[in-house]
């Protein structure tokens, strides 16, 4: 298992995140979780997600990406492994933590 991993959403995935599911269109939360988040989540001890540089993060995208991770792996492990950097919008990190806390397991 790798030590610390970093993923920059805008640079490595897209600067224009989409909706919830793959069937809804490109760059969905489900696609991001399955193709990027889960792979790194399983490989690394901690994972830092850089959120700067995107046009915005729709609620459904965030909920499916991070809430979906909670539904699959459990809240405590997601909470302990994931870190977020959002210097452009500091409230974004708070929003994501809210989705992690309210996701149904």
């Amino acid at each position, binding site marked *: 298992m790798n030590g610390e991993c970093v993923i920059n959403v805008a640079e490595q995935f897209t600067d224009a995140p989409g909706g919830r599911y793959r069937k*809804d*269109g490109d760059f969905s939360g489900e696609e991001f979780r399955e193709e990027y988040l889960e792979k790194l989540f399983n490989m690394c001890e901690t994972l830092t997600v850089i959120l700067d540089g995107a*046009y915005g993060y729709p609620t459904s995208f965030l909920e499916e990406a991070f809430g979906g991770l909670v539904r699959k792996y459990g809240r405590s492990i997601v909470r302990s492994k994931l870190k977020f950097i959002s210097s452009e919008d500091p409230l974004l990190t708070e929003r994501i933590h809210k989705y992690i806390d309210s996701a149904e397991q």
Partner: protein
Amino acid sequence: MKRFLKYKYRLKWREQLYTKNRTRRHFKRKRKQRHIRKAAEQAKLLESRVARSKHETVSAPEVFSFVTNTTDTLAFFNKIENLLLDAYPIKIDLSKVTEMSADSLLYLLALFDRLNKSRKMYHVEGNIPKHKTAADKFRHSGFLKYVTANGVQSHTSKNIVQIYGGEKIETRIVKDLVKLTHTTLGLNKYQTMHLYEVLIEIINNTVHHAYRSKDILPKWYAYAEYNELERSVVFTVLDTGLGIPATVRRTWGEVLIDSVRVRRMTDSQLIISALDGKFRTQTNKRYRGRGLPKIKSAHEDGSLTDLLLISRKGYINLSSGTHQDLGVTFRGTLYTWKVVAQ
């Protein structure tokens, strides 16, 4: 009386099913045959009316806009739709229009789209407004790209994102809509984050909730235009689905009240309830249903102004805090708002 007849009809159907040894498939086939026969009759009727130039002319109101003239514009569309359903070829007369907004053109396109999807034959002709400003707006809107236009050319402008109709969430288009506020109002990515999120949420709602039938593809239309005088960008998004009041989840109590017809929640009340974030998602999942509250919060923090929402009979003006129920049903959901220079 109506209920009684319906019940009697059902009884007859069931009686026949068991006594005359007829299957459900038999009735389905009969219904389909009836439907095909009726469609063929209507197509024949339409063809003969077109051949005899028996067109019905429908004049659009002077103010052709759902935002500023909701009742008349809705009545105009209602008339068009009824005539088309009765197989009349029609002429849409826009010559007297002096003021128009994109929402009415989006609704017209959506109407054609709905007729195409139902495989109904129709014949529509039309003209453009005589008023210079209204005619310019019409030409620049992108409406002409979707219809056959003889001698009328569509224009483009860097201050307009022309009408676009999509079936999925297309982030490329949403980016174009947002970028218009960057180029015209000088806003940056951070300042328009809420705008981007709201646009995606609206389209997401269309894709997920606006249509119940799997046979009908969800479709949305969007348009954005820079208003130089006001230093604002006006956004218009429309879907022609079932509408928010028809697709939100109702509580058992509400269903019970509806069934006894004592007092029911009006369409505007249901929309407000969904905007307030009350558990209205038809998915029945607690983590869903966050799109409409997000739109409301973006309006409250000033990212969007003059937000207007029309869905079925519900008319909500979030800026003035007023809501009312319309006399005629609006098919689908219309969102319109402004983003002003900061």
